[in-house]
């Protein structure tokens, strides 16, 4: 599903965000990327979504090499991804349903099917009946659920989430993580960047540990404690 082979990322100003990273993620796997602030977690996710391009090495997603992917092919790659952001990135002037429907609009899904899929996604995140609400009327946790519903509505094979619980209290964080676990059970591959070590220990999933751009550990789920 995802393969990093000696991938490095150096930003134009000279900062080395990732250095010689190699790992692979199988389809249907759920794993976390952790590390201190500035360790390279977000850069790693940005490379997968081609928000940034790797400076060196080979990076494959869905068997497609991203290093030389043409600019016009990037939207297609992103349509096959579900992305969850720490700050939700919801459109505050649209309803919850409109926010969730956006990936389907971009994919050109018919109106009736769009409505069914949006209701399905909201049901999965526990927000049935809130479709007409404005995002600003929701709590932070609910807004994050809307972000997750938007990420899963087009049924992507791969979901990447950047600190999805960063602004949430422990109880809400746990609920959001349980949502990801449920999604994984449907066959989704899930990659989550998080620095919340206690949460990671509770989740007992594979963990990649980054430190100053280096991958210093790849802990299998069985050894997370």
């Amino acid at each position, binding site marked *: 599903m995802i393969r990093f082979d000696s991938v490095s990322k150096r930003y134009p100003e000279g900062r080395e965000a990732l250095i010689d990273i190699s790992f692979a993620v199988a389809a249907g796997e759920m794993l976390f990327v952790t590390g201190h602030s500035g360790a390279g977690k977000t850069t790693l996710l940005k490379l997968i*979504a081609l*928000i940034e391009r790797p400076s060196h090495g080979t990076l494959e997603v869905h068997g497609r090499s991203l290093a030389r992917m043409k*600019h*016009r092919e990037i*939207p*297609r*790659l*992103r*349509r*096959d*991804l579900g*992305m969850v952001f720490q700050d939700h*990135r919801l*459109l505050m*002037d649209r309803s919850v349903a409109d926010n969730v429907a*956006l*990936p*389907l*609009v*971009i*994919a*050109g*899904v*018919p*109106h009736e*099917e769009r409505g*069914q*899929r949006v*209701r*399905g*996604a909201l*049901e*999965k995140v526990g927000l049935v009946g809130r479709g007409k609400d404005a995002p600003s009327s929701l709590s932070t946790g609910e807004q994050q659920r809307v972000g997750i519903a*938007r990420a*899963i*509505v*087009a*049924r992507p094979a791969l979901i990447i989430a950047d600190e999805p619980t960063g602004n949430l209290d422990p109880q809400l964080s746990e609920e959001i993580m349980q949502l990801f676990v449920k999604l994984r059970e*449907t066959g989704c591959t899930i990659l989550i960047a998080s620095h919340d070590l206690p949460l990671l220990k509770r989740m007992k999933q594979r963990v990649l540990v980054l430190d100053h751009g280096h991958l210093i550990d790849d802990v299998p789920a069985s050894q997370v404690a």
Partner: protein
Amino acid sequence: MNMQDAMAKPVRHSRMAMWRRQHAWCLRDSLRQLARRPLGTALTIAVMGSALALPLAFYLLLVNVQHLATALGDSQSVSVFLKQNVDARGANELAGTLRARSDVGAVTVRTPQQGLGELAAMQGFGDAIRSLPENPLPFALLVEPRAGTDRVQVAAMVRAVRAMPGVDLVQDNGQWRARLDALVALGRRVTLLLAVLLGTAAVLVIGNTVRLDIRSRADEIAVQQLIGASAAFVRRPYLYEGAWYGLAAGIVAVLLVLLLEAVLAVPVRDLVASYAGRLHFGGLPWVTLVIALAVAVALGWCGAWIASSRYLARLGNSG
């Protein structure tokens, strides 16, 4: 299909159907954005509509000046008034002499009776003319230069005719007509220049409006791109927005010109009446108005395209 089924199926549709649905959504979205700020939208449309109305009004004026020119006579004809003592035989002999010239195409002999009749009918002086004790008009010849004769050759022919015995007065109708034609050509050039300048202004007004709109929706564009929107998808609502502005402004411009026509109708009718119906004031044909609307839509689309393309190019996502 229940909700679980709906969630389980991957999203794949034919490209044409996708394209059609994306356009429908973008079209609705563009209208929604315009409706969100009614005052700003109305002001932009008013400014652009006024700008587009000006060249249309000039064009209306030009069309009617051309009507006037057509009504006032043919371009190249030369009127030759003979002396009072020249009779019908003398007039016909002179006409024969003129017809033999290589620079003359046709000569028509107008009798004094014909001239008086036309004068009475054309100028509305019927009663006054009927009260004259005798016809004061001489025989006249209407000389049409041969096709392809230029102004210099016509002027030479006029000089030669003036020198002929029996000729009292030669009136070169082509001279004033040439001046009128030059004025109409100048008016046409001014109208074109005005249309280009104000059209450019309209493109800039809409471009700037759309640019501000894009800037205010930068976060939305960023989210769209992150979840897989192509540059074309991102640009599309703004192109529709520009086209809506153009259409609305075009309608305003057409309405303003129709209003102008209505306002001018009464004074122009009086003027026309004073010329005994020989002049004709006409509005712009509907084809011209439809073309004006289409041009306005194209200008709006163009302004939006420039603004959105520049923004996307800055993001490195044009194409």
